[in-house]
């Protein structure tokens, strides 16, 4: 395998002069003809190649725009788009949001209702409701942080998607992150929920019903702030992507 030499061609080149006298006119004419044929071939191949290369380069310059248009037409979140793996659609991000927020909201509503029912007469039950509320708030925080658009979460998501793809499975919910825009709001929400959880935990350590109720105004303010951020996040999730994103 050392010499994948072009022997058929080589021999054609090298044996021809041996058959004809190198000084003969026939040979000279043939030589000119031979080089002319080579020139014609090279010009033809050169023009063809030039056209193909220029066409390829022009086509390649539009690759990014075509890729975005195709991703957008498929309902993909462009900020989550990565070449070579199935795209994350806006619908999938909405599903992820609902999967995180809906059960947490239901749990928090139930805990708040339990607290309201007991705050006037049953300290132990009210504190138990508050403790459950803190647990739900921390779980919501963790879920929101796991869905944030961070380098670590993106790497994990891409691995999960690639694994799912190689087994022919759909994209798992755990692989769906928020968009960068949603993540900004989600980060603010996480901070608000952490503040609320801290306050609620402090409230749950009250030694009397009076002390317990004294936290209500500040807890209501913190809850309103978190609710406001949650509404913003809901609005951001509900807005489908645009080409400018």
């Amino acid at each position, binding site marked *: 395998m*050392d010499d994948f*030499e072009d022997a058929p061609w080589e021999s054609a080149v090298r044996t021809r002069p041996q058959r004809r006298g190198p000084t003969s006119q026939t040979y000279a004419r043939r030589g000119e003809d031979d080089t002319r044929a080579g020139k014609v071939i090279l010009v033809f191949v*050169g*023009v063809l190649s030039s056209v*193909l*290369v220029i066409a390829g380069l022009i086509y390649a310059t539009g690759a990014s725009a075509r890729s975005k248009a195709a991703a957008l037409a498929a309902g993909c979140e462009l900020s989550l788009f990565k070449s070579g793996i199935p795209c994350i659609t806006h619908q999938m991000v909405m599903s992820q949001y609902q999967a995180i927020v809906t059960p947490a909201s239901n749990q928090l509503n139930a805990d708040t209702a339990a607290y309201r029912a007991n705050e006037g007469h049953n300290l132990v039950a009210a504190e138990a409701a508050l403790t459950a509320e803190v647990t739900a708030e921390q779980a919501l925080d963790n879920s929101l942080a796991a869905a944030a658009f961070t380098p670590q979460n993106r790497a994990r998501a891409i691995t999960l998607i*690639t694994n799912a793809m190689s087994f022919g499975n759909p994209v798992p919910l755990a692989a769906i992150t928020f968009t960068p825009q949603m993540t900004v709001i989600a980060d603010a929400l996480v901070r608000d929920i952490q503040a609320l959880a801290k306050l609620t935990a402090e409230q749950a350590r009250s030694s009397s019903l009076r002390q317990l109720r004294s936290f209500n105004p500040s807890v209501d303010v913190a809850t309103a702030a978190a609710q406001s951020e949650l509404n913003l996040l809901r609005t951001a999730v509900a807005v489908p992507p645009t080409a400018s994103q």
Partner: protein
Amino acid sequence: MATTRDYGPDVYPGDAVGTWNEQEQSAYDSKSQRRAGRSRVDEWMEKDFKFGGSRIKRRAVALILLGAPAIAPLFFMLPATLTLNENTFSVSVDDTLGTGAELCLFLCLLVTPLVTLTGQRWFVPLRRWYGIMMACCAIGDAIAAGLTDTFAGGFFGVVAGHVFELMGFTMVLLVIPLLITGNPWAQRKLGRYWKKLHYLTYVIWGLLFFHLSLLEGFGFQRGSNGSGFPGDGEPIFHQRLYQYSAASLFLLTLRLPPVKRWIAARQSEGRNWVVYATIAPVFLLFVFAMTFIINEEIFKGINSFRETPSAE
């Protein structure tokens, strides 16, 4: 790995460079001038330089650097081989090793045109090395495909059950004698038949066209219709038959006798720049095609190495 031994024309039976008479050379051939031109680079490559406590030839370093990337396809599959990861093999071995074999074939075929263009011969040993790596990749691809592909039938049913696979399997069968005889001992034993046997490389090159045309078709993917799944939405650039054709145009053109004669005539006139200017477009097309083949090899290869194979 390629050795630094000079596999010059003198060791090849039938390589007639040394038999040409002076008149022929002066009338038509530019070998002596090209040889003079190349000798400067070749001589520079022959010189030693001091590295640590020993002296190393420049050519040895250059050959190692140019030859090392040919190991990449097999290296990419190493983790899956060590862990016997059947999933990685079934999903991406054909892309990683198959594309690797194609790349090595093109690099192997590139050596002769570069000798024609530059007159240099210091890189000729790479031809054997790329050929060996092409054979290893192709054989590895066939074995892995036969063991892990999901087509019906046993090993031979899988590797020869479809026409495109039969083409690939034929290429692998043809590459085996080339691999076995790709050494100086076999070259000496086979004498003048050695070169004829190694014309099989061109048969493999031709069969690859049919293999890819049966695999990919002549068109490209539109929507969900067509082979392959280009994740970047650019099916034209990822159509393997187009890549093959664009890369082969340069390799084939530089082997045509009239083209070689024209190049020799221009070189004998001392107008190398005309040759380079004329060849530039087709060489650019070759580079353009090779860029996408190498890109695919790296993309698929890294995914295989991480054992998260891409089914793209």
